[in-house]
């Protein structure tokens, strides 16, 4: 998945929407001053089912795209 952390306002809805618990809010802050969404797993893909709940609930369009490895948006 492709995230734009600069737009994230740390509302946390995506974190609470991911059924696999793949997301978390960062320790640091982005240029707007918010803790931004990031992938919980360093470097790995994690158990993402491609359900795209995070993509749809985000009010800021911070979750830009969900890409399955090797393909266009799931």
């Amino acid at each position, binding site marked *: 998945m492709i995230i734009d952390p600069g737009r994230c306002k740390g509302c946390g809805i995506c974190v609470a929407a991911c059924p696999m618990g793949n997301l978390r809010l960062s320790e640091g802050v982005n240029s707007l001053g918010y803790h931004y969404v990031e992938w919980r797993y360093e470097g790995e893909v994690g158990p993402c089912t491609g359900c795209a709940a995070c993509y749809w609930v985000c*009010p800021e*369009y911070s979750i830009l795209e969900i890409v399955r490895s090797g393909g266009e948006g799931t």
Partner: protein
Amino acid sequence: MGAEVRQAKRIGLLYDGRASTFCPGCEHGLLLKLIARALEELGVADRAVMVGTVGCSSLGYLLFDSDFVQAPHGRAPAVMAGIKLVEPDAVVFAIQGDGDALSIGLQELLYAADRGIPMTIFMYNNMTFGMTGGQMAPTTIPGMRTTTTPRGRDVKLSGSPIDACRLLSAIDGPAYLRRAILAPRPLRVKGKIFYSAREALEAYRIVLNAFRAQLKGGFSFVEFVGTCNVNWRMGIDESKAFVHEVGAKYFPPGLCRDIYGLEGGGKV
């Protein structure tokens, strides 16, 4: 609710890298995203004209890469009518707040609906005048505290909230009238809060229908009930719960009119 989950694709109509000026937790950004996505999916992005309103609903123009013209407060339905009558191929839409649509702009809204000139209006109902600091709005609930009803809205002095869907149902002109809750419902499981994409996906289908109605030559109006956690003085989760538990009683989701049978031909 179907099993079809639409593709999570990049949305071209939203400017790259530009953060919104909405508060964290506000659903305005969500609505904007759904609109952008819908216009692209319907293949009409290049014909889209966004008419600006006044209030937080107007902030979308900073992010939305379509032709745009600002209307005075409440006048967007009339400006859209002017555009549509001379450029019938343009796909015109506006996001009005509850104040823009039902207070200062009520007459323009009613007559645009009455004439049935094809256009699409989304009313973001957060029961307040958000941008100006949280004053009472036409949809403020009785007893709700705002900056102009510091002791709670008194129906005897200030009247009752206006039900836009019901009001517009009394007019023959509209082709598609719909109300839905845009805020995700917080689900408490073992002390933790979860959200689902259910409201967002349902809203997306409604947004698509609203534009389809315009493309078929009809006037469409959708009331989306959302949060304003900052002016309500609530946390994000609390504000979502408020909408579903309290707001939905005054503004129940439902289909008020669907001439083209876009939602499968019947009242929900």
